[in-house]
């Protein structure tokens, strides 16, 4: 008995050694390449400098803060800064005024003391030591209120109005859905899938657009693709592990839908919070009403899987509503704290992945119980898309 265990451990150790051997060999070879100047005589010119100004924050009307990343393989030195074609003083990071060198993949904030005028565009340029310039347009700058308790309260209120309340109202359709025959209920589920598909496309387009602003070194497009596929696979893996071969229970599916919508609403909240912090949101009635009407359709999408069979206890409805709607509040707070395009694109992409996975589940539910491509489901799906398109016109952020 003891012998077998020892043998087993020995086998496992050997297996482990064999598993890590290629990595160890690679590290050794890398050491050799670094230690021996193998390529000392090889010169094929210099790589081009590549610097991105991903975004600008305006903490007050005396300051421009440029968020800068060196994407290139070589260090770059920011020697001078131009604002509106004029040399201007600046400081990089916590350092004093003057030139600074950024290592490859290093990011820094370039602070320029400049008395700007709200609404008047500015063009800023970084001048590197070799004379190359990297510019950025600051379109219609507005004072950014920054993060105060007032802002957080306002964003919480907005989040509840546009996230939690419409989803809760939409869930009130639940009794109506229970009285529907299964054939039409499938139409409602397809409508939910249509709503979700619209949201996925919307967020996907946004994510790829946002990816364009991500510093080149982080490969924005690939980051978005990886995040979408990653979240599909991860959620699918978790779901598969939970149900352990069984079909997902209606309640489980409802939670999955709520999670997908919640992730989407998180990204929506990020956009609201970001726009608010950037001084870009007119949080007037138009925006709030638009979002409320738009998000109303998310309510029936969440509860549609529960329409058949035993009604779960009421607290589940509360939890589902919060899971789907409350992330708007959280996203709003996050978005007001950090206006990073990388973060924004990442959240959007994760939301897309979650929705795709939910659609997969909805489709298999319908297929299990009936026909996936029935007139009811197809027209339900179409109605979902159309309703979302029409209500989306009301949302102008």
């Amino acid at each position, binding site marked *: 008995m003891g012998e077998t265990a020892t043998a087993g451990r020995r086998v496992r150790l050997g297996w482990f050694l064999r598993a890590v051997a290629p990595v160890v060999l690679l590290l050794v070879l890398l050491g050799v390449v670094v230690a021996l100047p193998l390529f000392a005589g090889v010169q094929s010119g210099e790589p081009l400098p590549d610097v991105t100004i991903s975004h600008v924050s305006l903490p*007050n*009307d*005396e300051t421009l803060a440029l968020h800068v990343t060196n994407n290139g393989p070589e260090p770059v*030195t920011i*020697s*001078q*800064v*131009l604002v509106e*074609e*004029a*040399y*201007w*003083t*600046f*400081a990089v990071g916590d350092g*004093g*005024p*003057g*030139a600074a060198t950024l290592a490859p993949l290093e990011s820094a904030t370039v602070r*320029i*003391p*400049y*008395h700007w005028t709200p609404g008047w565009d500015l063009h800023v340029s970084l*001048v*590197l*030591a*070799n*004379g*190359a*310039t990297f510019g950025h347009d600051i379109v219609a700058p507005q*004072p950014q209120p920054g993060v105060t308790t007032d802002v957080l309260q306002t964003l919480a209120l907005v989040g509840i109005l546009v996230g939690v309340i419409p989803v809760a109202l939409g869930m009130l359709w639940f009794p109506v859905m229970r009285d529907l025959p299964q054939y039409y209920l499938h139409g409602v589920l397809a409508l939910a899938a249509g709503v979700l598909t619209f949201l996925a496309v919307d967020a996907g387009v946004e994510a790829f657009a946002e990816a364009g602003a991500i510093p080149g070194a982080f490969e924005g497009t690939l980051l978005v693709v990886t995040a979408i596929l990653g979240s599909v696979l991860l959620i699918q893996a978790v779901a598969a592990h939970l149900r352990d071969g069984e079909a997902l229970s209606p309640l489980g599916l409802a939670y999955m839908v709520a999670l997908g919508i919640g992730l989407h609403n998180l990204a929506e909240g990020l956009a609201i919070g970001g726009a608010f912090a950037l001084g870009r949101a007119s949080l007037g009635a138009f925006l709030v009403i638009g979002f409320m009407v738009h998000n109303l359709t998310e309510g029936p999408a969440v509860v549609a899987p529960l329409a058949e069979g035993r009604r779960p206890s009421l607290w589940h409805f509360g939890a589902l509503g919060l899971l789907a709607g409350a992330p708007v509040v959280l996203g709003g707070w996050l978005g007001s704290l950090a206006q990073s395009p990388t973060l924004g694109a990442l959240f959007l992409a994760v939301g897309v992945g979650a929705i795709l996975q939910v659609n997969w589940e909805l489709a298999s539910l319908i297929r299990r119980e009936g026909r996936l491509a029935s007139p009811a489901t197809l027209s339900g799906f179409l109605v979902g898309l159309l309703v979302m398109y029409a209500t989306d016109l009301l949302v102008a952020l």
Partner: protein
Amino acid sequence: MPGDRSQAADLTRTLGRRLADAVEADAAVSRRAVLGGLGLAGAGALGLAGQGRASNDHGSGADEHGNFGAVGAYESTDFDPHAFLREFNTGFETTESVPNQRVYERDDGDGGTERVREFDFVASLRPIEIAPGVSFPAWTYNGQVPGPTLRATEGDVIRVNFANGQRHAHTIHPHLKNLNPAMDGIPQNGPGLVDQGDAFTYEWKAQPAGLHFYHCHSLPLKEHIHRGLYGAMIVDPDPDRVGRKPREYVNYQGPIDAAYRADLVERAELRNHEYRADELDEQVMVMNGFDTNFDGDNEVYAVNTRAFAYGVAETDGYGSWSAGETIRPIRIDRAERQRLYLLNVIEFDPINSLHTHSQFFDYYDHGTTLYPTHKTVDTVMQCQAQRGILELDYGDHDPGLYMFHAHQSEFAELGWMSFFEVT
């Protein structure tokens, strides 16, 4: 608005407490002076006070509050605009920029003799720091941009032994009244382009009197000029010749009496480095610029290559300033008159200009006349290759800083902004 004002007042009070605490220990700072500045500071922070800046924060001063201008000082000694300003190569003595130069008489082939001013020029590639920390790969004559300033007297022969050590083919084209097409320094005439490793000796008659221009005429012309192959050539009027042919030096058709002639001769002597030119403080200013990112627009403008080199190194924006090692105003003596040899070589922009603050001057377009072509002006405009002589007198002015700059604000803010410090 009243809300903003009361917010400003609150902020002012807060700042006041904080700053008063901060300066408590510092006997050099008057507490009252600090508090006095705060009204503006509070309003400024809320955007109520126009350009008012909250610059009273202890120990920070101008650094934190948006001074215009380039940051830092020049790090390299590849070119010194302060030395270039007053350096003239006459052939009589060698200089660092033209180590090989000489003056000699030779047979003019016509029974007489002529005086030759001979200079050795080499074209080379050299990085030059054109703004603090920003390097430009310049094509140079004798390792500098602008090229060395040559100076001769009217009627002399200017002889340039040109060797090309740079990988592109170059020439030297003179803006003189040159009577031999083989010496025009263009690809289509004489030796044409001078390739790397080749050499050619140009000979030009120094005429007419005035301020002139030399530059490379290889194609593409835009690139060969803006990369740095240009310089100034001064031909001083010969007082004897002026006495004999006064009409060639004035734009005037009336009778010329003895007094008029004598005045012209005296003016010629004051222009000529072999007579009395040293009675004035003579300076060469070449207005140039550099396109560092190949977008067909200059990122740096300057007189004599280095942006802001004749500026102040530091200022708090409230009237106090200091000079630096590499960035400092041009010091001038108010007891002396100034003569500026101003030449525009700017590429990509149609014109350039010079404007003097609190000062008017006489301007001699091309320097070819002995009476001003523009009398009492404070701004002159030049197209590329245009040049002229400015005569200024700060005798009436109080000592202190007097600005001069291109009155294209864009050029000024990109480096062509300078000061005289009148002492």
